[in-house]
């Protein structure tokens, strides 16, 4: 167990290093710089700025500083938001995305799994078709359209919920639902197909023939096995939802982390690009590890060991 963890941690460090390196060179290759603006700086002032931010150093020195910073989680100040530390920016934006993300995951997971199970149990019946129509709609309607539709119905027409911003719990409902739609639909479809497979397997038939009730068979024996694909999808999903969605945040005016990702790139705000990338990568890598560990918990057949003996 400990060896397995250690091995995985080493992998994480190596992947992180690769990610950091690639980001750095992509960033440098992109035309334009952080100080470009409609009203140009005088050359002398621009030189002073480059010096202050270490952009006048040779590339390999910049790269070394960059890697060291990335691994010590000290990214320095933002280029665009004068004097604001990148860590502060992440620390103040993340909670918004986190709350919103947790709500969205809760919605997606509970309703998605429910729809999937209903569809599988009522295979080729009315319940199945209803659930799948919802799922197909959810997958094919992009989140920003969903967001606008929700805004139009619930905020503008009904006046039941606020149009934008993030003050109270009520403000978070519309963005969370908009955010949850696509993963919800995906989970429902995933759940349905794996549930169907499980319900047709021998051990379920055995359980049924032993005279166990439909409920117990479905929920105790079936669900636990059928949920495995959803669990593995959950890792990347959780990370991408928790780190925020640029579009949803922008439409609802939420000061979350998602907009930082996109805006830092448009601003060529090198330190924020680095900070958000590292933050996202660390979260992603760790959550994948956790999902793998959870696997062992849900499915006892999978042994988490250092010998690579997992199936």
């Amino acid at each position: 167990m400990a060896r397995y963890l250690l091995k995985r941690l080493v992998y994480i460090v190596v992947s992180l290093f690769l990610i950091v390196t690639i980001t750095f060179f992509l960033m440098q290759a992109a035309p334009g710089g952080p100080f470009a603006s409609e009203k140009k700086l005088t050359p002398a002032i621009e030189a002073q700025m480059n010096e202050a931010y270490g952009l006048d150093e040779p590339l390999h020195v910049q790269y070394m500083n960059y890697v060291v910073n990335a691994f010590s989680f000290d990214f320095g100040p933002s280029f665009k938001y004068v004097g604001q530390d990148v860590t502060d920016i992440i620390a103040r934006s993340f909670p918004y995305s986190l709350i919103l993300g947790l709500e969205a995951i809760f919605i997606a997971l509970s309703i998605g799994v429910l729809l999937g199970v209903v569809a599988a149990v009522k295979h080729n019946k009315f319940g199945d078709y209803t659930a799948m129509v919802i799922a197909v709609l959810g997958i094919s309607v992009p989140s920003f359209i969903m967001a606008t539709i929700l805004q139009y119905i619930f905020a503008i027409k009904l006046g039941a919920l606020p149009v934008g911003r993030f003050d109270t719990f009520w403000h978070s409902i519309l963005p969370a639902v908009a955010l949850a739609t696509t993963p919800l639909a995906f989970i429902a479809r995933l759940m349905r197909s794996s549930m169907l497979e499980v319900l047709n397997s021998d051990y379920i038939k055995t359980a049924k023939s032993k005279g166990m009730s439909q409920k117990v068979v479905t929920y105790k024996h079936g669900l636990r096995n059928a949920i495995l694909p959803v669990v593995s999808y959950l890792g990347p999903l959780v990370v991408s939802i928790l780190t925020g969605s640029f579009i949803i945040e922008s439409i609802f005016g939420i000061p979350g982390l998602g907009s930082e990702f996109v805006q830092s790139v448009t601003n060529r705000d090198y330190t924020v690009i680095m900070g958000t990338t590292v933050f996202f990568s660390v979260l992603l890598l760790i959550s994948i590890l956790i999902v793998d560990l959870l696997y062992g918990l849900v499915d006892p057949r999978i042994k988490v060991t250092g010998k690579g003996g997992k199936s």
Partner: protein
Amino acid sequence: MLKKKWFLLLTLVFALGLLLAACSGDDSGEESSGDSNAGEDSSDNSEGSDGEEKLAADQTFDINIKTEPPSLNPGTASDTTSGAVLDQVFEGLMRINQDGEVEEAMAESYEVSDDQKTYTFKIREDATWSNGDPVTAQDFEYAWKWVLNPDHADTDYAYQLYPIKGAQAAKEEGASLDDVGITVEDDKTLVVELNQGTPYFLDLTAFYTYYPVNHKVVEGNDDWAQEASDMYVTNGPFTLESWAHKDQVVLKKYEDYWDAETVKLETINMYMVDDANTALEMYNGGELDWAGDPTSSLPLPAIPSLKQDGSLNLSPLAGVYYYAFNTEESPFDNVNIRKAFASAINREGIVQSITQREEQPAMALVPPSIWEENEEGYFEDNNAEQAKEYLEAGLEELGMDELPPISLSYNTDEAHAAIAQAVQDMWRENLGVEVELNNEEWNVYLDSMGEGNFQAGRMGWLADFNDAINFLEIFQSVGGNNYTNWESEEYSDLLEQSRTEGDADARKEILREAEKIFMDEMPIAPVYFYTNAWLSKDNVKNIEVSGLGGVQFKWGYLTEE
């Protein structure tokens, strides 16, 4: 079994960690929920019984500023969002009033020497900082010299201070800060020496780079402007109550402001909602008292219907939208070709059916809000005949039979794309030239323009202060913001001459002459002069949007609905 429990524990700890982190972020803005339906009921009440306005009991004004202000330190700010906050919380020696005139603010009076080069400002006795300290001449000296100190990066707008003697040398050439022409005679007297007579210097002292900072508080602590803390000491009509980054700025009236009687608004909530549609819906729902320029924008598709129902306010903005020609590359190295392209644009059509904000077609460089004469311009809009004549003359001079395909560049944006497509059509129709459109993301675009990697490219320019020199000096020499690679000795000499001319009329004469030369050479094809477009609730009074794209809340108030 033991292993399993350990996993469970780990998962729980992780989940708990997430929850705890989540809880800390949500204490930001409960105060704003109370007044959210205040403006809802009677927004279409006409102004009615004039003269007998009753002040609303709740003087809380809600506005959207779209994004996080990049810097609330006047020395390092360089954008309109930061400016919109700074203009309310700080005050310079002068302030631009509701009529667009400069009037005394922190300065009680000023004297100008006969050669126009020395300004002596007397600072108000009753001017105080929000922590009670008196505002002194040292505060101005400290603030200005801080910006001019070459050790301080991020001072993008340091060049705004360059009219002051020795300022540029101190910032860029390593000269001593002691030689800069800023002298503190006594606590309340500030003497400023300029390089040369600068007729717009008073306007400049109203600009945020010229704002003072309380040197007693700020000295030795360059991070003072990061948060709304005790350190953030201001001298304007409002104080910075709170600053929830990327979410909301709250301003409160400063009770000891020297002109506090004038200030009626008690609270200003500045929200940061990026999406123009959402902001408009918040306005419709009564959560905002103001939508659109200058602090945010209205969605393009909503403009026509807003104009139709008469709720849209429009005012001229001192700025010009133009296509720059690369005058070093064929065929735009030929002046007749440039004129042909400029004459072949139907500007009236563009502002009528694309931008739709009553912009004025631009046939000159300096906006009519600065020079009224320029409503007419130097040539005729949409003159296909004339354009063809120029084209023939140009082709002959170049020894060509027909024009090669031309590329027209712009930065990626819905409105720019629509205008470029229209212009593409006009050029194709009137001049028979193939036009290829080319759009790039903003940073990439600036790079290509700077490298001269374009034939014709979109640009815009907004004035920082109300003077024609803002526009004319862009093209004084190649480089900087002049992407056209055009320069002219005669033009440059005229501008230099204008700088030493003390008489306002004579100076204008010289500058007009320079503009005429410029329009004769036509290194750019002006398209239109910008406007501000905004909505405000009927009970919002006395808030004007300036021609420079600024907004002042000092004089604003709300009436009973």
